[in-house]
């Protein structure tokens, strides 16, 4: 096999996973982990300059190149964060060295699986990759072995399995739809073939397939009412995993959905996937917005915020059209960066305060100014306030929607407002007020967090034309 960039983004993590599984010690493995993700990122970046032709199994096109770069980038920064985070967990004895070894290996497996899901040209392969990613994260969520962690992992596992089953059924149905047109065998599962021939597929079968895929991958995306695993999995696992879950895995699942949406969009007779995605998106947004108000656990809070944002993104893609698709892509990117930054902050907060209970962490800006303001900046960004990037995408989503479907836009806007209220209500008791909890200095690296926030800030004000052209191109592809 010729080693090119695409195979490299798969091989490096796979190899690193094996290596890390074998190596003991913490310092070295953490560095290898960072190194591997950095290498993967470099390979992914090289995809911008040249990419191999699509094969039967792997493909890189404009759509997934964006995702790959985003994934590897957040994967890299998270590994940097994870190095300091896990070190602290070892120090306080929440994790033991064997588990750290396991953790690092699994981290690389997860990166591998996500990259595989993104570059897969075969819908079956994509499905398998997402399943691997799910199982890996299940194991990582349960790594602390507390009752809560096991409960969360178990819930994630069961709901994820059912979701995976439904997605598989949808995949089979897509194959069935493709078979009469493309012919039996592998070709009928190759995405690049499918999308060119989709116009001739049986629309009714595609519709049915999409329903299963929507529910199946939607479970992974965390759309309400399929979201149940998400808050607990985010809350009970190690924070780097929460960051990766929110920042990446949800995107990967959404990416899978988008691929299938493109199939439907290419078929004139098929049911427009828009309304389904729009309604699920809105439902998730509004539901999660209300759920923010009663949160007592800081990580669950932001997990629900992820559901909310996945709702917005799904909504945007459901609305379709160049403007909304652009907004959806932008929002997804910004959300990944911001949410992972928030989880970095949250991880440190939980470590310095020794708890995840919001009630026990008042006055953070007083005790840990840098951390506190970083968290505030993150929440400001995630709530869609300017001048950060999410503001721009929300601006585009809302304004482009209102001209087309005023009622939907009003629901959307109300959801956003309720969510903002919920987030800031909780933020107030974390960041402001009389300081509570320990005020010891945090041993943490703030670089990843502020790097993400800086990127988000820049994107909110200025976006490089190349990136814009890229996004516009992809938005056009999405139809």
């Amino acid at each position, binding site marked *: 096999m010729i080693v090119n960039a695409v195979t490299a983004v798969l091989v490096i993590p796979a190899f690193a996973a094996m290596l890390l599984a074998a190596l003991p010690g913490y310092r070295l493995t953490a560095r290898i982990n960072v190194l591997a993700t950095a290498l993967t990122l470099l390979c992914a970046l090289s995809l911008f300059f040249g990419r191999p032709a699509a094969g039967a199994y792997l493909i890189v096109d404009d759509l997934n190149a964006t995702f790959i770069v985003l994934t590897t980038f957040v994967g890299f920064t998270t590994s940097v964060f994870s190095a300091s985070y896990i070190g602290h967990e070892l120090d306080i004895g929440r994790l033991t060295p064997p588990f750290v070894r396991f953790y690092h290996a699994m981290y690389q497996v997860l990166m591998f699986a996500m990259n595989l899901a993104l570059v897969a040209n075969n819908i*079956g392969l994509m499905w398998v990759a997402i399943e691997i990613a799910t199982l890996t994260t299940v194991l990582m969520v349960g790594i602390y072995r507390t009752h809560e962690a096991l409960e969360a992992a178990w819930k994630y596992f069961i709901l994820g*399995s059912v979701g995976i*089953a439904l997605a598989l059924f949808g995949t*089979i149905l897509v194959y069935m739809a493709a078979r009469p047109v493309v012919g039996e065998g592998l070709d009928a599962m190759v995405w690049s073939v499918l999308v060119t021939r989709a116009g001739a597929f049986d629309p009714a079968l595609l519709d049915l397939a999409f329903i299963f895929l929507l529910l199946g991958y939607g479970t992974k995306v965390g759309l309400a009412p399929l979201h149940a695993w998400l808050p*607990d999995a985010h809350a009970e696992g190690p924070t780097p995993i929460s960051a990766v879950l929110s920042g990446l895995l949800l995107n990967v699942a959404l990416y899978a959905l988008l691929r299938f949406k493109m199939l439907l969009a290419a078929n004139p007779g098929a049911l427009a996937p828009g309304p389904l995605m729009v309604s699920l998106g809105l439902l998730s947004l509004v539901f999660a917005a209300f759920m923010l108000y009663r949160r007592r656990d800081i990580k669950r809070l932001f997990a629900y915020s992820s559901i909310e944002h996945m709702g917005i993104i799904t909504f945007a893609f459901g609305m379709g059209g160049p403007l909304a698709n652009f907004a959806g892509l932008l929002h997804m990117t910004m959300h990944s960066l911001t949410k992972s930054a928030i989880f970095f902050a949250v991880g440190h907060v939980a470590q310095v305060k020794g708890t995840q209970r919001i009630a026990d962490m008042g006055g953070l800006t007083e005790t840990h100014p840098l951390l506190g303001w970083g968290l505030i900046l993150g929440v400001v960004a995630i709530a869609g306030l300017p001048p950060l990037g999410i503001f721009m995408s929300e601006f585009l989503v809302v304004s482009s929607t209102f001209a087309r479907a005023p009622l939907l836009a009003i629901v959307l806007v109300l959801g956003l407002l309720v969510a903002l209220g919920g987030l800031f209500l909780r933020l107030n008791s974390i960041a402001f007020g009389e300081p509570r909890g320990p005020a010891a200095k945090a041993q943490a690296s703030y670089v990843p967090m502020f790097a993400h926030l800086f990127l988000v800030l820049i994107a909110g004000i200025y976006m490089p034309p190349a990136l814009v052209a890229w996004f516009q191109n992809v938005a056009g592809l999405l139809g």
Partner: protein
Amino acid sequence: MSPIDFDIAHMLAGLLVLISFLELYQDRLYALLNVYAAHALVLALSVAWQAFIQDAPHLYVTAVIALVFKAAVIPVALHRIIVRLGIHRGIEKVVSIGMTMLAGMGLVALSLVVMLRVTQQAGRLAQEDLAFALSVVLLGLLMMVTRRNAVGQVVGFMSLENGLVLAATGAKGMPLVVEISVAFSILIAFIVIGIFLFRIRERFDTVDVQVMDSFRGEHR
């Protein structure tokens, strides 16, 4: 395809649906496991028959997996777990069996309506296969949501998965079927191990609510 081929395939698929109903009807764990073994057996037969009529030798692998793993190993393993962990032998249900059966009928009707409407272009075999597969999937899900008991739910999930394999084999020429069935077997193994190893006895829905509730979600 000769009519007799079709009829046999049809009959096997129908039988699978019927056994799904039987599973719904059970109220003892052992009986349920036995019925599930029958379910897997019929699936294995059906897959084998498909392998035969489609002339797709790799499907035999799937059939063998179904036969060995699902019809024998898993039910036995579950049996042992029940004994070892002293799980209550009855199956706690959320709604009565009668209601469940009625709902099941409705689901079968729904899947027939949906499938027969949408798969007019596909061959009749695929069409009916899919209709039955969907029924099995839905019945499996129904079982998962109406059984409080973990083992009951695992069985529900397994029969759901049987429906998927049925669909996959019914889709003529579909690659990866073997891989999928392997993957699912692993998944199920995980679940069983989960029940066994972590002693997550009743986490789906607990018998001793007070104890388990404290671990669920945010502490109330």
